[in-house]
């Protein structure tokens, strides 16, 4: 038996080599923003919107595509959006497409979805620039660490 502080006491042979060497997957494997956010939340929400909520309503889908195509991207530093592609192939888009969608969505879906759904899109759009920040001047103001978080509880 070996004693892992604060954890279950597990027989040594049940532990893989990495755990014995001191790897804590929760701490040591960072949250990967491509798969967790772009190909995670943004993809979930976008597919839900296009495939479930709009579903067979071709008029609304057409409207969404048109709005995306005519969306002003001059502030985003990307090429104009291909609305029809983003809507028609909502199941097989890449991270780059979702990055554009996450920033444009609140401005193009506002009257196509329920208020709760819209609020979620707005919340997600607000998170995007915070996460993709290449430089953080004040880490404490940017993200509170769990220590203070637990202390607050």
């Amino acid at each position, binding site marked *: 038996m070996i004693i892992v502080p604060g954890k279950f006491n597990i027989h040594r042979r049940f532990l893989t080599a990495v755990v014995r060497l001191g790897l804590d997957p*929760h*701490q040591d494997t*960072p*949250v*990967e*923003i*491509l*798969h*967790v*956010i*772009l190909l*995670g*939340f943004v993809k*979930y929400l976008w597919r839900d919107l296009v495939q479930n909520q709009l579903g067979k309503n071709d008029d609304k889908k057409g409207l969404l595509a048109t709005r995306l195509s005519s969306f002003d991207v001059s502030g985003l530093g990307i090429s104009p959006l291909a609305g029809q592609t983003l809507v028609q192939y909502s199941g097989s888009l890449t*991270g780059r497409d979702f990055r554009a969608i996450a920033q444009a969505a609140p401005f193009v879906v506002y009257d196509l979805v*329920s208020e*709760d*759904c819209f*609020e*979620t899109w*707005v*919340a*997600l759009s*607000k*998170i995007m620039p*915070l*996460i*993709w*920040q*290449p*430089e*953080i001047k004040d*880490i*404490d*103001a*940017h*993200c*509170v*660490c*769990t220590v*203070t*978080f637990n202390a*607050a*509880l």
Partner: protein
Amino acid sequence: MLIVYALSHSMQLCDHILIHCRSQALLDHEIKHFLLCAARWTTRWFNKPKFHIFLHLPDHIRRFGPAILFATEAFESFNAIIRAKSVHSNRHAPSRDIAQAFAQGNRIRHLLSGGFFNFQLPLPLVNRPHPLPTTSGMAPDVQRPFSVNKSSWKKSGTGPQDLVYIPNTVTQYLGLDDKKQVKTGE
């Protein structure tokens, strides 16, 4: 059971939000706000593990720096380059074919860049001297991978090198183009 769990989870979230409205931790606050919005819309989102994993992000930003530094986005796109080398393969041994295709690319690039290669003409059979005993036991007329004789190192002539004198499809494929100037911030 699931609903009870989801409810208690979202109630916990509400508590967290209340406490955190006071703190100015921007990212943390926005993440919890997003989760609260998702919970209010439909708790079925929380069947997805990523909604929990997301909560660890502020810790990891604190530990590893801005999240863009540990995103796999740029590296993931290299898959396309590797995959492109597998196009004309029968897929019986994909790794070997891809490795050989890259090695071939490297070889051609080396030759077209004017790199040296060890080239010794095999002597005609009649003129061959008697094999001298060598330490490796190898006959001296056998092509060796390395030579200390300067004259056996050759490089490609002007004909092949003219092919890559100006940027064209060949240089583009072989990565011989000049590097694009990296844009820098102001």
